[in-house]
């Protein structure tokens, strides 16, 4: 099995087979990251294609001494960031206004009861985080990256990553009612 570096070298030579192999190897990681940031499966599918199209387009400029995954994470985060900014510029104030009109649903017990699954609650809480915090939370929790790796991917200081993660965690715990000691049971279902 060829390494990422060998596949990149072949890709630089124009090999579409190498592009396909890289896609198969990293597609889940890219898709999951885009999905976590955008909360939109269709957008995540589009971004998945975009990331690998850009990999093909910029393969000549790629430094084969460096690992591929941070580049993929960075491209995915940037494209997802742009997508969210573009699509929620007008939508978010309208949603907040609608929430304000109907009252704060989070305080009503039936709202929590309606959300049947833990994963749905967590996803909803993540989707309401400010975008910089959301990107860090997705990279940290969903992709199991370290603070140092996230800092390098986003090109920000580790302290900034820690700060965003701290406030993101506080917001998540508040949104999920996790300040109590009792935490619901969960089972891991994914790959």
């Amino acid at each position, binding site marked *: 099995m060829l390494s990422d570096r060998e596949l990149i070298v072949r890709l630089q030579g124009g090999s579409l087979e190498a592009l*396909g192999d890289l896609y198969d190897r990293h*597609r889940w990681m890219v898709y999951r990251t885009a*999905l*976590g940031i955008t909360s939109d499966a269709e957008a*995540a599918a589009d971004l*998945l294609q975009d990331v690998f199209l850009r990999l093909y387009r910029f393969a000549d400029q790629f430094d084969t001494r460096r690992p591929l995954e941070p580049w993929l994470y960075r491209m995915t985060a940037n494209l997802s960031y742009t997508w969210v900014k573009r699509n929620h510029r007008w939508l978010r104030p309208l949603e907040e206004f609608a929430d304000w009109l109907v009252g704060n649903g989070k305080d009503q017990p039936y709202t929590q009861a309606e959300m049947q699954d833990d*994963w749905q609650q967590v996803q909803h809480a993540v989707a309401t985080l400010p975008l910089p915090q959301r990107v860090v939370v997705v990279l940290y929790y969903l992709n199991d990256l370290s603070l140092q790796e996230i800092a390098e991917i986003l090109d920000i200081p580790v302290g900034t990553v820690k700060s965003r993660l701290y406030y993101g965690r506080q917001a998540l715990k508040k949104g999920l009612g996790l300040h109590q000691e009792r935490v619901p049971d969960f089972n891991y279902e994914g790959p």
Partner: protein
Amino acid sequence: MNDVRDSYIRQSLKNWAARHQLPANGRSRLIWSVATGRTEPHRKQRSARSNVRDGFLYRTNPNPYWDYEPFSYTRLWMLHMTLTTLLHLA
């Protein structure tokens, strides 16, 4: 930084992501896009302003590689009905 609540958030997020299927034929669509030097046809059905799928300009042909037709069957039908009505009124 790890505690039980962190584990709960992590596993719940992973469970949520795992419920989504990867797009079908992604590899072949990617290679097709690169080989033909074109973006995917279904992108053309998205409004450039809002980047949301435009319900009116729906694809009439189920083939994903079919090019978007500016004069869809719906538009032709509406044009036909409009002209027919105007001709009857004239």
